């Protein structure tokens, strides 16, 4: 795996006199450089999930814990949303078992979360009620402690609601939202908080016709994911739907032509440092998760459109502009509702989990413009999130999409399942039935460990 590709490069510039000074000192110190160089080069192998923020401290070696943000189910256990900790350390007597769970009290449409850049805190969001639960995962990573909650998100942010992801930035987090307080529709914002929990800023998504914005006719104001390519100072955001839709029964949404019009059809290219939108790309059908390639010379990202079952590539062209291209169809006729994707650390393999038919489809994306399906495998009757380890050998799946969008009856399986990946096939390692455990509907999964890299 190309670990070094994740290291952001530094600018190349003529040596300053300070550098010259250091060079002179280095020459004087040459007899001891070998030892210093050896110390510096004894790098530890890093692991982690492949789709995390590049600003995030990384796990050294094998992940030990799987943190699962789980929706409460009325009448099951305490009925509340909770953080569930699963032991995933090979050889552990509790491998594949629940080590710990901590209820947050009530049901808030538990959905996504993320770590702060130092990986000391895990922020978990509720899409309904806009509460954020902040866990200390540093003091005892096996038993995270609920440290505090943010209860005034809607008022503090000036009306953003439905906090979705939590994306680590230096000393702060970026929280893409799904909706707004005024009409509970799809117009929404990106919000920033400091790691200490202090509100910093709200950046509303661009609207159609915004002056000076390339492609502004495609803007719709919707949001979902937002991720950064530091080397290019580019942030991409995607678009889903608002509170009125994601809190309704899926069948009702799917059967309502007006509701179906209320989905995002755009991605926005931002100047990340200034947080200013630069360009809007037309990507119809609710583009969801964004996965930037890691390679130093790979200026592109993948996304999948939930409603149209397509893979899209956002890439920089030779003129420095960004383009969005449909590059593959996922599944057959009728659509399979692709809901999450995971790109391998070497940018060659893309795992796509499809809620509609419960399958994981694996694409060879070594030619990103021409993905090639190399494997598909049933994971369950429904499957949602997929998280892959940095070394590409382990892949985890969870089952729940949204409280009112999950399947019903026997199809409503609620699980966490772990597989190994040998390059051609997923081999089951363990499965956890979270209904049988009385814990709820598992959604976002994040890796934890007792050892962190710099």
């Amino acid at each position: 795996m190309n670990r070094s590709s994740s290291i952001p490069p530094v600018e190349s510039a003529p040596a300053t006199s300070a550098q010259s000074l250091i060079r002179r000192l280095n020459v004087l110190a040459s007899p001891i450089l070998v030892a210093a160089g050896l110390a510096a080069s004894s790098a530890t192998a890093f692991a982690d999930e492949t789709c995390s923020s590049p600003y995030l401290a990384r796990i050294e070696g094998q992940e030990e814990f799987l943190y699962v943000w789980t929706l409460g189910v009325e009448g099951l256990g305490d009925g509340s949303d909770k953080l569930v900790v699963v032991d995933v350390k090979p050889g552990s007597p509790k491998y594949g078992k629940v080590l710990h769970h901590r209820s947050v009290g009530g049901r808030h449409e538990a959905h996504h979360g993320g770590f702060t850049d130092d990986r000391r805190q895990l922020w978990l969001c509720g899409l309904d009620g806009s509460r954020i639960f902040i866990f200390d995962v540093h003091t005892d990573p096996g038993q995270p402690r609920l440290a505090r909650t943010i209860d005034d998100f809607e008022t503090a942010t000036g009306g953003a609601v439905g906090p979705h992801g939590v994306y680590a930035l230096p000393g702060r987090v970026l929280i893409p939202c799904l909706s707004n307080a005024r009409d509970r529709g799809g117009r929404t914002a990106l919000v920033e908080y400091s790691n200490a929990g202090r509100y910093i800023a709200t950046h509303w998504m661009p609207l159609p016709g915004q002056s000076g914005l390339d492609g502004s006719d495609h803007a719709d104001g919707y949001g979902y994911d937002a991720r950064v390519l530091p080397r290019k100072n580019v942030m991409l955001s995607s678009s889903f739907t608002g509170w009125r839709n994601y809190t309704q029964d899926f069948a009702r949404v799917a059967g309502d032509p007006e509701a179906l019009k209320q989905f995002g059809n755009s991605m926005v290219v931002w100047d990340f440092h200034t947080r200013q939108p630069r360009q809007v790309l037309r990507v119809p059908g609710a583009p969801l998760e964004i996965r930037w390639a890691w390679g130093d010379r790979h200026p592109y990202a993948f996304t999948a459109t939930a409603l149209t079952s397509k893979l899209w590539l956002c890439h920089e062209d030779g003129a420095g502009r960004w383009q969005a291209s449909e590059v593959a169809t996922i599944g057959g006729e009728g659509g399979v509702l692709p809901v999450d994707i995971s790109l391998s650390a070497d940018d060659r393999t893309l795992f796509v989990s499809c809620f509609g038919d419960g399958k994981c489809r694996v694409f060879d994306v070594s030619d990103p413009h021409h993905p090639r399906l190399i494997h598909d495998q049933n994971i369950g009757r429904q499957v949602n999130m997929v998280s892959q380890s940095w070394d590409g050998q382990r892949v985890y799946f969870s089952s729940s999409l949204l409280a009112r969008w999950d399947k019903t009856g026997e199809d409503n399986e609620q699980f966490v399942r772990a597989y190994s990946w040998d390059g051609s096939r997923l081999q089951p390692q363990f499965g956890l039935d979270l209904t049988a455990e009385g814990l709820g509907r598992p959604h976002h999964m994040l890796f934890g460990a007792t050892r962190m890299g710099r």
Partner: protein
Amino acid sequence: MPMKLLLLFTWIAAVALPWMAEANSGLPYDYPLPEPGTYALPVIQDAADGEVIATDGRRLPLRSLTRDRVTVLSFIYTRCTSARACPRATGVLARLHEWSAGDRDLASGVRLVSLSFDPQVDTPDRMAGYAALARSHPKAAPWHFLTTASREQLAPILRDYGQAVDRKEDPRDPEGTLHHALRVFLVDREGRVRNIYNSSNLDARLVMADIRSLLLEERAPNP
């Protein structure tokens, strides 16, 4: 070679070598720089206070070095050998220092601060040796090399800045290397943190654009 000099060269080499290796990697940041003053740098937090020690042994409040000028504050420890961490930060501050030498606004409006989070090893004397980096440009913005009296004095400063530092558990080397997140703070003249950089966005040119943005602000901005 006197032992003290050998030790000095040891840690300078340990600091410099990885940084130089990365600086020469030929992998550029690839984006146009923002125009200073055309974008917002909202307040993230107040710059924390605490007692620190200068290279001459003088004790002073940290807040006296985070007010009235735009400050770039870097937490470091001189034994750090990770090319992505302290050596990188010190290299960026050295570049800012050099640029400020030829610019009156920068020289009079900016300060640089390198504060150790390893007080047991980074004594004022040791930091004074490290300050050789700053002596090549007498007309540049001031660059302060600071430490603290003890871990106890340091702890609230680290806590309030959110600077993560852990001692790596190694029974063979109980005073061994420190596990830390690289953080560099940009502080405005009112003592408020306006940007935070880590190893992924610590681009000296970008820091300079931010510095110039703050210098363009009025004395009492309301961002």
